[in-house]
């Protein structure tokens, strides 16, 4: 006897070949573009780069803060921010973008275009001739069990998938971009408010207030009635800590208000924990001379990664790194509602930006066969051993 088939009315069986639907008894909110984590049941969403999702444990948990330490020319960290926002557009999430240098609208216009293979193949199918069957051109002869299944999905349904791929050589179509609700905060256009008694300087205070207003108004903290569908807010904050935000932590060794950025991140994390939102913050850490400040900022965020690109450094011509564009360091992974976090296999990760994919791979070092490989390269190798290694860098035999 076949197992009873349970069909939920109106459920999305598009693209499935069976009509069996798992009956979900969990009370997790089903928001498009999210999925529950296998480790601790947290609601995860994709960062836009599927290999980055894998490295940080499946995805970004809703309610957390991702810190990205920028590379020197801000090329790859800006790319990650654009992937993050593009993923939000494709999944239908709301966006909030704040920046101080380029206008947020300019960043939005540079978003990469998503690759939707199903849509492309559907178009080509319509051009082909129909199968010749005199009685009924559409009946299937061999696979007749699948006769009543719906056709291959349209482009709209592909947003139900977790994680998409983007083509960086093309920008996203304006029609697709405008389907997403988008709030922006451009620091140079804000009027400075006189905050006499706030511990935060004016730009950060204004930004925090703007974020809180958006969260309250759109109801991400649960204050809307049940009829409105739940959605997630993606916050992208570009280059916090730079001088354009009114902060001198990147300019001076002993900044006047060295706690501004850390207080801001603390308050932001408090806001995120009480709402359905995820924030991605990029910080130009190579400009911060005070190392203690960077340590504090990393501990104040949930997930922290650092990008180190080879462009412009001597590593660019190093034959060991010729396949990659830079190194990716995972500084911190969060412990969310559980004791142990996802422990990565290896800490030696390198990334490469290809046209259709941002890949992050384990850095494989080839065997050191020739005598002519210079000692200089050995210093670079030792840096991959893990941050707690304090021993000698040269192994001289």
């Amino acid at each position: 006897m076949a197992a009873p088939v349970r069909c939920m009315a109106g459920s999305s069986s598009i693209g499935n070949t069976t009509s069996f639907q798992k009956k979900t008894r969990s009370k997790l909110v089903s928001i498009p573009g999210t999925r529950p984590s296998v480790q601790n049941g947290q609601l995860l969403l994709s960062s836009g780069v599927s290999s980055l999702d894998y490295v940080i444990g499946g995805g970004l948990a809703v309610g957390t803060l991702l810190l990205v330490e920028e590379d020197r020319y801000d090329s790859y960290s800006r790319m990650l921010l654009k992937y993050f926002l593009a993923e939000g557009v494709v999944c239908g999430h709301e966006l909030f973008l704040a920046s101080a240098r380029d206008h947020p609208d300019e960043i939005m216009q540079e978003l990469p275009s998503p690759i939707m293979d199903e849509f492309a193949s559907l178009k080509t199918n319509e051009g082909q001739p129909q199968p010749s069957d005199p009685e009924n051109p559409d009946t299937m002869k061999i696979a007749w069990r699948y006769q009543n299944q719906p056709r291959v999905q349209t482009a709209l349904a592909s947003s139900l998938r977790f994680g998409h791929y983007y083509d960086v050589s093309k920008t996203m179509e304006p029609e697709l971009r405008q389907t997403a609700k988008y709030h922006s905060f451009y620091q140079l256009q804000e009027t400075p408010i006189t905050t006499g008694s706030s511990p935060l300087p004016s730009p950060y205070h204004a930004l925090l207030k703007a974020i809180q207003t958006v969260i309250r108004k759109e109801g991400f903290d649960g204050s809307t009635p049940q009829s409105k569908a739940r959605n997630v807010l993606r916050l992208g904050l570009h280059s916090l800590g730079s001088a354009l935000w009114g902060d001198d932590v990147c300019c001076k060794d002993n900044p006047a208000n060295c706690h501004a950025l850390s207080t801001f991140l603390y308050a932001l994390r408090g806001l995120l924990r009480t709402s359905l939102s995820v924030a991605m913050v990029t910080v130009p850490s190579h400009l911060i001379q005070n190392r203690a400040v960077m340590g504090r900022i990393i501990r104040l965020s949930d997930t922290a990664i650092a990008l180190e690109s080879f462009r412009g450094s001597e590593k660019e011509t190093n034959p060991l790194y010729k396949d990659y564009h830079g190194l990716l360091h995972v500084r911190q992974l969060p412990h969310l509602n559980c004791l142990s976090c996802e422990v990565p296999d290896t800490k030696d990760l390198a990334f490469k930006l290809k046209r259709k994919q941002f890949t992050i791979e384990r850095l494989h070092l080839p065997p050191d066969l020739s005598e002519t490989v210079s000692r200089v390269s050995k210093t670079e190798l030792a840096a991959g051993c893990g941050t707690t290694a304090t021993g000698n860098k040269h192994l001289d035999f």
Partner: protein
Amino acid sequence: MFPELNNILNSTPDSFKSSDFILVSDRQADASFLIHHYLSFYLRAGCKVCFLGLVQSFSHYSAVGQRLGVSLAQAREKGQLVFLEGLKDSIGAILQEESSQGTQHLSYLRSPGAGLKGLFKFVESSVGQNGNRDDGESWGPPVLLIDDLSVLLSLGVTVGAILDFTLYCQATVCTELQGNMVILVRCEEEDVDDDEEGANLLQRGLVHQCNLALHVEGLPTGYCRDIHGQMQVWWRQSGETMYNPRKIFHFKVHDKGASFFARGTSSAVL
């Protein structure tokens, strides 16, 4: 509560030392699993617990507590646990225009230079309350748990003010009320020298005040997937013994606990 750690420290929920100041610190590792251990330990022992949760929300601790076998929500309802939601209430304290009565204990957020007097008053009032259990008896000796005192440094409070605060708390909780204190401090790397306002300075000051120090670090030989780090245990012996013993253990954190073993005896190696 981790049974192996109880064996190492010679304490069980039924019999533990009172008037103890335990300092948990870490350097480039995460020692918060020890805070979860102590939270479940003291709740099982029936003590009145005041928890200052400055870096995570209540639901995080309650989810972990369920895996360790204690229900924090129940304890809070019965009055055994007083939880300060530092993270979630912080946004209100920072953004509001004038200070209201409700956030006096978070006054360090608005004026970090002024010190932690409001926070101490909160601790004093919650530790001093004497509610009763269901069966009419009073709770055990009070316990103060602080998750991450060093985050106050990131918010602009000075090291001196924090050390004053811990001295006041020690005098009230440990000496007057014969209770215990467990504090978590997260330190920087050793060679970062901003000695004026560093977490290292704070940690050194607290080690001087405490009775038992647990320091968690990564392995000195590098990153390992099976051994998550090493923990140093240092007791301040009072009385006759002349030297202070210091022991080192390796540990690995699982889903439901942590296992501790002597150096070199990890199951991955043997």
